[in-house]
């Protein structure tokens, strides 16, 4: 698979212009800021509340914007010609994903600042967030490929939000219902565990486990997304 920086750049620029002028989608970027300010003013400063916002940001911004970018190509009938263009699958997906990655990174940084969250180890947290962003980008790609319009894509992002952003809350029920313990293995739960570990000087082994779980989810999602994309390409 050949990758061309020039084409990736072209797709990045085009998507950035389209995204910034499509207010229905780009307005979502500001939602986490409102939420973060809200929590901060209320004086809630717990790891759980911080990551409630961060996980919500990953679903609402990362997965949502990515799915909208792909669904929009379908809605305006441009995906077919894009797929037939000289750009390879990798070019197209990297071009779109790098834009969403950049947007997500900036939004997360600002959100964390507004929350007033000062992580114990910034570098490790940044790395964990980067892996998470990749995971949600892959999820967004899958959502975008399953839907036909931006409207549908925004609905498809809801289950992502439900499962991955609110999933860690289910953990509270695990004493009553042991089955809820499965939620511990969600990447969002692992992200919280990791963050808690960073505060309490957790042993390196557990950090590695958390990373391994998140990377596992990410790789699975990326494979699923590219298989689905290839299938769509031969379908129509």
């Amino acid at each position, binding site marked *: 698979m050949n990758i061309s920086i020039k084409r990736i750049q072209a797709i990045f620029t085009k998507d950035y*212009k389209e995204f910034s002028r499509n207010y229905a989608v780009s307005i979502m970027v500001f939602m986490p800021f409102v939420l973060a300010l809200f929590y901060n003013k209320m004086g809630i400063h717990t790891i759980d509340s911080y990551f409630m916002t961060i996980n919500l940001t990953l679903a609402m911004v990362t997965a949502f914007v990515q799915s909208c970018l792909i669904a929009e190509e379908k809605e305006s009938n*441009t995906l077919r010609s894009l797929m*037939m263009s*000289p750009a390879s699958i990798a070019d197209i997906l990297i071009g779109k994903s790098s834009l969403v990655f950049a947007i997500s990174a900036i939004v997360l940084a600002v959100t964390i600042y507004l929350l007033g969250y000062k992580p114990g180890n910034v570098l490790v947290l940044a790395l964990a967030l980067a892996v998470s962003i990749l995971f949600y980008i892959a999820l967004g790609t899958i959502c975008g490929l399953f839907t036909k319009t931006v409207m549908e894509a925004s609905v498809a992002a809801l289950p992502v939000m439900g499962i991955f952003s609110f999933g860690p809350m289910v953990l509270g029920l695990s004493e009553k219902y042991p089955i809820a313990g499965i939620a511990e293995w969600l990447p969002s739960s692992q992200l919280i565990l990791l963050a808690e570990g960073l505060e309490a000087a957790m042993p390196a082994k557990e950090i590695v486990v958390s990373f391994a779980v998140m990377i596992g989810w990410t790789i699975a999602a990326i494979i699923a997304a590219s298989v689905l994309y290839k299938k769509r390409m031969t379908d129509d």
Partner: protein
Amino acid sequence: MGVELKAVMEEGKTILPACTLEGQIIGVYTDIQKMQLIMQQLKQQGYVHHVMDGQYRRLKVEEAFRFYMKMAGCPQSLEEMLELLGLKKLRKKKVTDLSLSQQQRIAFLRPYLYGGTFLTIEEPFHRMDTDTRMIIAGLIQQLAERGSIVLLLSNNLEDLLISTNDIFRIDSSGFHKMDFNEEQPTITEEEPVIKIEKIQTKKNDKTILFNPPEIDYIESLDGEILVNVAGVSYNCSLTLQELEKRLRAYGFYRCHRSYIVNLQKVREIITWTKNSYSLKLSVGEGTVVPLSRNKLSELKELVGIS
């Protein structure tokens, strides 16, 4: 029907007519259903331009140009390309604010820039203003000069004729080249002359008019002129000479001193002896018209036989 067509196309491995060369523009005159099938089958072979493909409507014209040019690695400058598509003045406008025809010009950047050695274009001139048609026709020409085989699909023959004379229609048995007379356009330009020749005859005091092609042959019998149509003879007041003059254009021939025959109905030249011939007609059974010896060679020349 679709299955049938597919079989034909698979037989030849590729659906292209056998005579395709580099740089040829081929028109395929077909219906929408077959067009979809053809495009489906050809997408493995090269870029397929769909008339329904959309636009990045929120981009400005020059941004859209830059995007397509970067994607294709186009060596030309932005200015040149804008000039080529006649959109220089509109470069700062958003794509969505352009007219439909102008948007189609931008859409055509894709086949123009992405197209390789083979490309397929659906309805190249569908719903376009004259300026846009001229621009697109120019681009298609350029593609061909670049050495690409360009396949144009349309169900509008006039559209295809803008770009090419190599037009094929397609049916279940494959591609068929369509013939276009060089004179055809000049005829249509002239004032159409409507000329109706009817041969007036009489039968039982009724006046009956015949179209020339209906007539099998005309004979002169005892000073009377008889027009034979489907085995029945009718009297005619014209002389053989006058009839010959009027009917020559309809493929009639004075095969004998007292006979005029409709050559289109001749089935057989019978050689009775070395000097005696007859023409057997395809109508009725055994309708035979004599043929003069000295007329034989002229007739053979006329119908192009030896």
